[in-house]
């Protein structure tokens, strides 16, 4: 029933309010890339045609459309991406991972000038997760382009370059240098960096600053622009809206949660940088909450990230409105997980008799019947 109602809304007249467009844009955001629009098949519908039944032999199983259009020409072959900082530049895992089976690669955070990063220790395990404070170590945008651009261009998988900076000017300059280079399918802005020009306050915690950097980058490039939200804010919704209004094509949520660990002798915090970013299954409920909130207030696609370790997590994130997910920390434990999730998502669709995974999206969002309601939207800590 859920899916059926969503379909009815999506194909009906466009809503005029700001609260409801999620559904409208979700439809436009996930129109299949090349193939003709497949008919929506409500989950749990009584009559499933014989041809749509999953085939036990597996050979002639139902073809499932996993592609997702993020906007501005960025079409991911499937909704399973690998998260920035956990997959390097795509080459590190070598033959262990077939990168061309991934939905997308978000490369290591890239800055204008080379950065040597933070002092060690930089990583430590915490219950159900890990803290990292790499400090954006990277060779600088020019070296990244020189070293990887041609290689990425030869890959089928879209490579999205994660960009970080200390000022709006930094971001714009990095993006200018990436613009027009082969092999770069899009930009993901890491705005959880201190804005040196404004007293070191992070861009991501202030709607105005976040919108400012998004708009500036938007003017500098026609590349698809993703902006990564920080969870370290009281209410992420005004920030998400501001970023969407500033011209972002999609949002990724969430970046790591700020945390610390204490050293074994208890004389000082463990990490060289004191503060680290928490990732892994421990943050999954927070990520689900933020994706759930953001999907109700923006009309651009949201890519979820936060502690995905199995197919159930992917389905959870889709249910709260994400159109795709990024796998991060879990890659360390199992580098083959992202590719396996693609297979498992396809199989899950076949089992349900779906020709596309898109009817799995947004099923857990509040129902929209009649006038928009704020019920269930409020954040109750």
């Amino acid at each position, binding site marked *: 029933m859920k899916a059926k109602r969503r379909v009815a809304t999506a194909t009906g007249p466009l809503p005029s309010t700001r609260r409801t467009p999620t559904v409208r844009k979700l439809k436009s955001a996930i129109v299949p890339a090349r193939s003709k629009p497949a008919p929506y098949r409500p989950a749990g519908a009584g009559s499933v045609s014989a041809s749509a039944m999953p085939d036990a032999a597996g050979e002639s199983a139902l073809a499932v459309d996993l592609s997702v259009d993020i906007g501005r020409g960025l079409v991911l072959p499937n909704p399973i991406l690998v998260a920035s*900082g*956990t*997959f*390097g530049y795509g080459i*590190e*895992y*070598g*033959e*262990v991972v077939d990168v061309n089976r991934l939905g997308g690669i978000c490369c*290591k955070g890239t800055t204008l000038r080379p950065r*040597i*990063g933070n*002092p*060690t*220790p*930089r*990583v*430590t*395990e915490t*219950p*159900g*997760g*890990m803290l*990292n404070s*790499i400090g954006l*170590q990277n060779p600088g945008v020019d070296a990244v382009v020189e070293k990887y651009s041609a290689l990425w261009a030869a890959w089928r998988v879209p490579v999205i370059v994660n960009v970080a900076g200390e000022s709006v000017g930094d971001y714009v300059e990095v993006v200018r240098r990436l613009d027009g280079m082969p092999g770069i399918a899009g930009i993901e802005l890491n705005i959880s960096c201190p804005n040196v020009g404004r007293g070191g306050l992070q861009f991501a915690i202030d709607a105005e600053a976040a919108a400012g950097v998004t708009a500036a980058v938007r003017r500098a490039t026609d590349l698809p622009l993703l902006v990564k939200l920080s969870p370290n804010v009281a209410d992420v919704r005004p920030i998400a809206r501001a970023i969407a209004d500033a011209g972002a094509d999609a949002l990724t949520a969430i970046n790591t949660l700020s945390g610390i660990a204490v050293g074994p002798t208890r004389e000082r915090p463990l990490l*060289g940088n004191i503060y680290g970013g928490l990732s*892994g*299954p421990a943050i999954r409920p927070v990520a689900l909450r933020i994706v759930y909130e953001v999907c109700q207030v923006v009309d651009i696609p949201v890519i979820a990230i936060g502690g995905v*370790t199995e197919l159930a997590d992917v389905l959870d994130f889709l249910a709260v409105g994400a159109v795709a997910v990024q796998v991060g*920390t*879990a*890659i*360390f*434990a*199992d*580098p*083959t997980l992202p590719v396996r999730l693609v297979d498992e998502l396809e199989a899950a669709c076949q089992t349900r008799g779906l020709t596309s995974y898109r009817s799995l999206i947004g099923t857990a969002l509040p129902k929209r019947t009649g006038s928009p309601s704020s019920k269930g939207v409020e954040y109750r800590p």
Partner: protein
Amino acid sequence: MRLVGAELLEAREILPGQWLQTYHAPALATGSRAGQFVHVRTGDLSGLVLPRPFSINTADPASGTITIHFRTVGRGTQWFTHLRTGDTIDMLGPLGRPFEVDARSQHLLLIAGGLGMAGVRSLADEAIRGGRQVTLLFGAASARDVYPTSLLPDEIEYVVATDDGSMGHHGFVTELVPAYEAWADQAFACGPEPMLKALAGLAVTRRGRLGVAKLGRKRGAGKGDQVGSPAARRKAFLQVSMEQRMGCAVGACLGCVVMGTSGTPLRVCREGPVFASEEIEWEGNWGR
């Protein structure tokens, strides 16, 4: 580098809290070299999200087995001790760069501190197979932590130092090194960082003490050798196997770096874990 399933064949507590586990993993046994490591995931991914790196302690291509040697220090290593014979776990490896022995080196000095034994242990096998002479200097806190002779090849000379004097030399293992400096063609070390730093200091002043500075045999990483290259290590008198908290173990996350003399951080998992001692910036407090 491959992701392989490894079956536990045997597990023994060889010293208090220290375990030696034998796994059947033919791809790792035949495809690895001394100094390389494996990244092993635990089965408890809900709590322990990071795999654990272990040096390949020994590798036996004939039986297709490798051993790992570890101390139970936390929940991750505890998890491994609960494995039963026949259990299969995922290992990513072989990873990192191995020790490089110069073709002309006949006398190898191996220096291990505590668990550092696991880092140099397989080099002893490799050197003996190559017809070289090996002296292994081993340092531990006390006699109860001394690696058993029965687990070492008969061909090596094994010299022990203990901090409390309960066995062998009373003092640090580094104090044994000067007696072997003239004999050794090359030295290979693994252990706590202060020990490696002391050894690196000895290596720098070694030629002066021995008066062999201009004897024609060129040692030391040359200017033209790229950091992390086999040549840089092969030419070095001292090679060290470094330890650092690790994330991905393949060079993607940049978590496990040490500062290099070139001013750029070096990834222990990728440029290392074995470095020429000249490649490491031992002074300064970056990351200490």
